[in-house]
C-alpha cells in the first residue's frame, strides 16, 4: 500500500472514530441541559397531564443509554430518525437546509477565497508600502468588529437607507430562480466575505513572505524575473500548504459557524434549524446536525492534510 493511501485510510478511520465521540458528547450535552423536549414544546402552558402524555409518546421515559444506542443503531443503517417536535423526517428536512447553507457557503467562498489570495499576493508585492498597509488595515478592522454588527450596519445602509439590496433574505425561496436567490443572499455573502477575508489574506501574506527569505527566491531575483512572477511561480506553490489549511478552516466556518448571520438575515440554513431544535431539546435533530457539522469539519481538515502532503515532496516520500 502506498504511503499516501495508507495515510488516507488512517485519517478517514480516525475521522469516523471522532464522529462517534462527537455524537456521544452531543447526546450527553443535551441530557445535562435543564428541561426536556416535552417541557420545551408545551412551554409556559404545560400541564402535568399533557407533559406526561407527551413524554410517554416520545419515549422519553426510557433510560438515556438505551435511547442513545437505539439512535446509533438507526444512524449506521442510514436512518436519522424523525424530529420529536414536528414529526418530520430529519434527513429530508435537514437536506434542504444543508443545501441552502452550502449554497450560501459556496458563493461566499467563490468570492472570498480568490479575493483573499489575490490581496495576499498584492500585499507581498507592495510589502510595507501603502497598499499592504491599506489591505491589512481594512481586513483586520472588518474581522475585529462582531459579525452581527457588520450585518446590521450593511443592512441599514445598503438595505434601508439606499435600498440597493434586500435587507433580509426572506425572498430566498426554494422555487425562486437563481438570480432572485443570488440577489437575496447578496448581503449575507458580503458580510461573510468581510468576516473571513482577513484570516486568509494574512496567512497567504505570511506564508509567502516566509518563502521569500529562501535562497532560490534570491536566485530567481538574480535571474531578473519580475517580482510578481517570482511570487506567483516560485513562492506561492511552496506556500500552498499553510494557505490551504487556513482556507479549509474558513470554509468549515462558512458551513458550521454562520448561525448568527443566518439568524440576522433570516436565511433558512442549518444554523437556524439547529438553534431551534437545541432550544426545544429535540435530541435526534441536534444529533443529526452535530454529525453533519462534525463531518464537514473533519472532512475539510482531511482535505487540507492531503493537499499539504501532495504539495510537499518531503511528506509524499517519507524516509
Amino acid at each position, binding site marked *: 500500500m502506498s504511503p499516501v493511501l495508507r495515510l488516507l485510510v488512517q485519517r478517514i478511520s480516525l475521522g469516523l472514530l471522532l464522529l462517534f465521540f462527537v455524537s456521544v458528547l452531543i447526546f450527553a450535552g443535551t441530557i445535562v441541559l435543564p428541561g426536556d423536549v416535552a417541557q420545551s414544546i408545551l412551554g409556559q402552558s404545560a400541564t402535568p397531564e399533557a407533559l406526561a402524555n407527551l413524554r410517554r409518546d416520545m419515549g422519553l421515559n426510557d433510560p438515556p443509554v438505551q435511547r442513545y444506542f437505539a439512535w446509533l443503531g438507526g444512524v449506521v443503517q442510514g436512518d436519522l430518525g424523525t424530529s420529536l417536535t414536528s414529526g418530520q423526517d430529519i434527513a429530508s*428536512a435537514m437536506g434542504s437546509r444543508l443545501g441552502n447553507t452550502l449554497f450560501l457557503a459556496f458563493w461566499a467562498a467563490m468570492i472570498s477565497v480568490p479575493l483573499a489570495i489575490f490581496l495576499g499576493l498584492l500585499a507581498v508585492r507592495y510589502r510595507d508600502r501603502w497598499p499592504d498597509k491599506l489591505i491589512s488595515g481594512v481586513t483586520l478592522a472588518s474581522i475585529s468588529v462582531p459579525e452581527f454588527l457588520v450585518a446590521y450596519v450593511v443592512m441599514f445602509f445598503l438595505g434601508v437607507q439606499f435600498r440597493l439590496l*434586500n435587507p433580509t433574505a426572506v425572498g430566498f425561496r426554494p422555487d425562486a430562480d437563481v438570480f432572485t436567490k443570488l440577489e437575496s443572499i447578496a448581503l449575507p455573502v458580503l458580510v461573510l466575505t468581510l468576516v473571513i477575508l482577513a484570516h486568509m489574506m494574512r496567512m497567504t501574506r505570511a506564508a509567502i513572505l516566509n518563502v521569500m527569505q529562501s535562497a532560490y527566491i534570491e536566485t530567481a531575483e538574480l535571474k531578473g524575473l519580475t517580482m510578481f512572477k517570482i511570487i506567483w511561480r516560485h513562492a506561492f506553490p511552496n506556500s500552498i500548504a499553510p494557505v490551504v489549511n487556513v482556507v479549509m478552516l474558513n470554509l468549515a466556518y462558512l458551513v458550521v459557524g454562520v448561525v448568527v448571520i443566518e439568524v*440576522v438575515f433570516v436565511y433558512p440554513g442549518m444554523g437556524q434549524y439547529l438553534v431551534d431544535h437545541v432550544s426545544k431539546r429535540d435530541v435526534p435533530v441536534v444529533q443529526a446536525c452535530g454529525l453533519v457539522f462534525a463531518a464537514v469539519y473533519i472532512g475539510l481538515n482531511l482535505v487540507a492534510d492531503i493537499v499539504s502532503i501532495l504539495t510537499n515532496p518531503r511528506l509524499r516520500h517519507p524516509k
Partner: protein
Amino acid sequence: MKDYLDYLKVSAAMGRISRRDFMGRAAAVGVTAAAANTMLAEAVHAAGPQKGGIMRLGLQGGSTTDSLDPALATNQVALMAIRLWGESLTELADDGSIAGKVAESFSASADAKTWTFKIREGITFSNGKSVTAEDVVATIERHSDEDAKSGALGLLRDITNVSADGDSVVVELNSANADLPYMLADYHLAIQPNGGKDAPDAAIGTGPYIIKEAEMGVRIIAEKNPDFWGDMGHAAEIEVLVINDNTARVAALQSGQVDMIDRVPPRTADLINRAPGITVRTSSGPGHYVFIMHCDTEPFANNDVRMALKYGINRQEMVDKILHGYGSVGNDTPINASYPLYTEMEQREYDPDKAAFHMKKSGYEGSILLRTSDNSFPGAPDAAALFQQSCAGAGITVEIKREPNDGYWSEVWNAQPFCTSYWGGRPTQDQMYTTAYLSTADWNDTRFNNETFDQLLMAARAELDTAKRKQMYADMGMIVRDEGGLICPMFNDFLDATTDRVAGWVDGVAGQPLMNAYAPFRMWVAA
C-alpha cells in the same frame, strides 16, 4: 381644482392610477406631499376594501419545530397559521364581547350548565365537505381527551359530555360556567373535519385562506379560500414570514419586503413611526409583566413582607423606562380595563414609608432574593434593577440573581419563591383567575390559597346576572391586590407596524396583537 383632486383620489383609491402618479399629479396642482399622502390615505380608506394582491407579514415567534396541528400551537406564528385556515366556534368581537363564528348562535340553560351551539348553515371545509355538528363534537373531544397534548386541555376539563343534536351541539358541564362561549373561542379549538382525529396537521378548516406551502419556522404561503363564507380576506395571497430578529424585522418593513410586522421594540417605536410610509399601531391588552412571590414560602408567607414589596415598587417609573410609555400601570391584580366586567379600584402608589412600615411589622430583616432572566419579559433584568433601587429607598435590600434564559420556565418560574415573569392574559376574568389564582390551579404561580376567593370564583362563574357578577369580580380583585403574591407593575401594549401599502387598520380591537391576529384578513392591499 377640487373636482380634479377628487377625481384623482377616486382613481388612485380604485387602483386606476398608481400612488406615484397620484402624488405627482397632486403636486402639479400645488398640493404638498404630506397633504397628498393624507388625502390618499383617506380616499383609500373611504373607497373600502380592494380585492387581490399579495400581503406579506413579518412575525416573531415561529420556529422550525412548530407543527400545523392546532393543538400544539404555542406562538404568534402558529396562531396566525390557524387564523389562516381555521375558525373556532366563537370569536371575540372588537369590543371584547363574544360572537358566533362557526356557531351561528348559542344559548345557555338557566343554570348555565348546559350550552347549545347552533352550527352556521351552509359553510364548508376547504376540502369541500360541509361542516356538521359531529365535526364540532369530535373537535372538542380531541382537545379534551386526557391523551391529547392540546394547549386547550386545561380549559375543557369541566366538560362532561358533548353531543350532536341535528345542526346543534350540546355541551354539558360539571359545574355552571357563564363564560363557556369565551373558552371555545380559544384558537387551539379550530373546527376540523372529524375533529382532526384523522389528520391533525392537515390544516383543513373553514378559514378565509387555504395553506399552499408551509415551511415551519421560515414561511407559510396561503391563497384565498374561494368558498369562505365571511366578508374577510381581501388579499389574493398571504405570505407569513418568520423574522425573529428585531432589527431584521424592522428593516424588512422599512424596505418594503413586508407590509406588516408585530412586536415592534418599544425602545425604537418612536423612531420607526417617524419613518416615511410606516405607522406604528399600539393597542392595549390584557398582557402584563409580573414579579411573583410564593404565598406559602418564607419570608413571603408573611403578608406584611408582600405588602412591603408591593409598596416598594415604582409602577410609573417601570412604564416609562421599561415600556418606554407603551403601556399602563398595574395595580397588583392581573385584571385591567381590557376585561369585560372590570371595576376600577384605588391605584396603589410607590410609598417608601408604608413599605418600611410593613417590613418592620413583619419582623423580617434579611434580604430578598429576586430571580430574573432576559426572556421572563423584555427588559426584565432592568426592571429588577429598578425594583432594587426603589426598595432601597424604603430600606429593603433586594438581591438580584440573573438566571439563564434556557430552562427558565421549567426551573425557575413556578418553582422558585420570587421571580419575574409575564402573562399574556385571557379573554375573561374567570379564565385568568382560574388559570393562575385558584388554589388548585396548575399554574398557581403565586401559591395563592384563599378560600373566600375560591368560593367567589365558583359563584361568579355560575352567575348569569351581570351586575352581581361584576361585584363579585371587584371583591376578588381586592383580595388578590391586598393578600395575593402578585406584584403587577405594568400592562404592556401590543406594538405592531404597517406600511401604507396596506389599509383598513381598526384601532382598539380586543384580544391578540395585530387586531386579534385578523389584521391580514380585515386589511387590504391598497397600492
